[in-house]
């Protein structure tokens, strides 16, 4: 999988309890109109801090970082008062023709219950090339 030597240890982050104002801010920022007061479907993105820690661990140049794919698998609803813990793992790391491909998977648990599984993919190209997504 990995062509460089990185620690494969998952990055774990225990978040503060989810608050109404966090949900409201996210709803406003995304202009979400149809989530009926619940956290919007992409709300788990507020827990992406572990992904940024992974990118830091991989020494990724953020100027060349492109988020190419995102997936959420919803197991149980997240709600106000839940205290999420995120377990984030490196699934793949490849270097090909000057590009770096990174895949991460994060499991969000509220208590013992898995709430959401998030899968993210990134391409890192040399800065100043511009281009895709």
């Amino acid at each position, binding site marked *: 999988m990995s062509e460089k030597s990185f620690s494969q240890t998952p990055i774990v982050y225990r978040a503060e309890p989810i608050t109404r104002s*966090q949900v409201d*801010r*996210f709803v*406003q*920022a*995304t*202009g*979400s*109109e*149809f*989530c*009926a007061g*619940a956290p*919007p*479907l*992409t709300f788990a*993105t*507020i827990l*992406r*801090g572990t992904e940024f820690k992974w990118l830091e661990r991989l020494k990724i140049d*953020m*100027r*060349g*970082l*492109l*988020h*190419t*794919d*995102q*997936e*959420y*698998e*919803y197991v149980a609803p997240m709600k106000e008062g839940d205290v999420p813990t995120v377990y984030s793992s490196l699934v793949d790391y490849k270097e090909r023709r000057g590009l770096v491909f990174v895949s991460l998977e994060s499991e969000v648990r509220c208590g013992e219950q898995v709430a959401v599984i998030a899968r993210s993919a990134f391409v890192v190209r040399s*800065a*100043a*090339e*511009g*281009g*895709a*997504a």
Partner: protein
Amino acid sequence: MTWEAGQPLRVLTKPAITKEQLQHYAAASGDNNPIHLDEAFAQEGGFPSVIVHGMISMAFLGDHLQMNFPPSEFKVLKLKARFRKVTFPGDTLSCEGKVKKTDAAGTHFWIALHTRNQRGEITTEGEAEILEL
């Protein structure tokens, strides 16, 4: 309402995305990558200006899904997005989609979604899997 394979979803057009929205989104989501916030940084990365967080487009797709499939009647099992093209402040995204297939009982649906900008370009492609409650 009964959903059948091939049936188009109602279109959702969002207001033009502003730089202020990117700042609000960064604050709400914790995604403070300067490529979305700092003009000079974005230009060093080869872009003419800051670029819109791909996750805002995905949030639009989530909202579009819940407009067509209200959370009181449907449970979203999965939502995926592939970010195909960069979106810039000032761009207007419309969310479009259709039912790709249903199960025999007509209660489990696979949906194809995308965002299209004001130039007619598809910027984000998505898929969702949902269950009627």
